[in-house]
C-alpha cells in the first residue's frame, strides 16, 4: 500500500473557524491532490501540486488554499469554514511519467469534516 497519511481523520468545527487538513506521503511522488467527495457529486478536485511550492486550482477551489513546503506534505486550509464545506476530503498522490503523463493514483483514507 502507498504510504499516505491524512490527519485528522475526523473533525467537527464551527462555522467561521479555520481548519487545516494535512496529507503526508512517504513515496516521494511528484503530484499531490486534494479531492472532496459529496453524495451525488462524486470526486471533485480542489487543488493539486506538481512540486514543492507549485500548486494549481481544481474545479472547486473557492474557499480553499493549499501549501506544499516539502515534497512529502500537502496542506489544505479552509480559512473560514462554512457548512457547505462539510464533506469527506481525500488526498491522493501520483508520480509523473514520460511526456508529463500522470501515473497511477493512490488515495489516503479520507478526512471527514463536519462544519456546524
Amino acid at each position, binding site marked *: 500500500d502507498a504510504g499516505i497519511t491524512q490527519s485528522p481523520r475526523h473533525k467537527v468545527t464551527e462555522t467561521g473557524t479555520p481548519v487545516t487538513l494535512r496529507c503526508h506521503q512517504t513515496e516521494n511522488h511528484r503530484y499531490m491532490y486534494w479531492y472532496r467527495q459529496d453524495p451525488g457529486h*462524486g*470526486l471533485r*478536485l480542489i487543488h493539486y501540486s506538481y512540486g514543492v511550492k507549485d500548486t494549481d486550482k481544481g474545479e472547486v477551489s473557492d474557499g480553499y488554499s493549499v501549501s506544499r513546503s516539502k515534497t512529502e506534505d500537502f496542506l489544505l486550509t479552509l480559512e473560514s469554514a462554512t457548512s457547505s464545506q462539510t464533506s*469527506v476530503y*481525500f488526498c491522493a498522490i501520483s508520480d509523473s511519467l514520460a*511526456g*508529463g*503523463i*500522470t*501515473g*497511477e*493514483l*493512490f*488515495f489516503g*483514507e*479520507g478526512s471527514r469534516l463536519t462544519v456546524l
Partner: protein
Amino acid sequence: GIQVEQSPPDLILQEGANSTLRCNFSDSVNNLQWFHQNPWGQLINLFYIPSGTKQNGRLSATTVATERYSLLYISSSQTTDSGVYFCAVTNYQLIWGAGTKLIIKP
C-alpha cells in the same frame, strides 16, 4: 472535454455470480484506472490499464483504447466486493466516471 460514462449505474447480484462493469470514454486518453470504494469509504486502486488486459485474482480488466472502452470483470463475487467502482481517465487531467454501485447479497 472528455466524457466518461459507466454502466450499469447499479448492480445487485448474489454471492458467487460474475459481473462485467463498463467504462466508455469519448476521446483518446493517456491512461485509465479502476478504483473500488468500499462501504467504509476507502478508495482502492485496482488497475492502471491504458490498454490491454490485466488480472489480479478474481478481478481482471481490459481496455480497448482504439474503441474507447474498458471492462472490469469480477468473477465469483463475494460480499466484500460490494461498493462503488469508479473508472478515471487521464489526458493530462484526471476525469472521473460517476461509478457503478455494486451490491453482493449473501
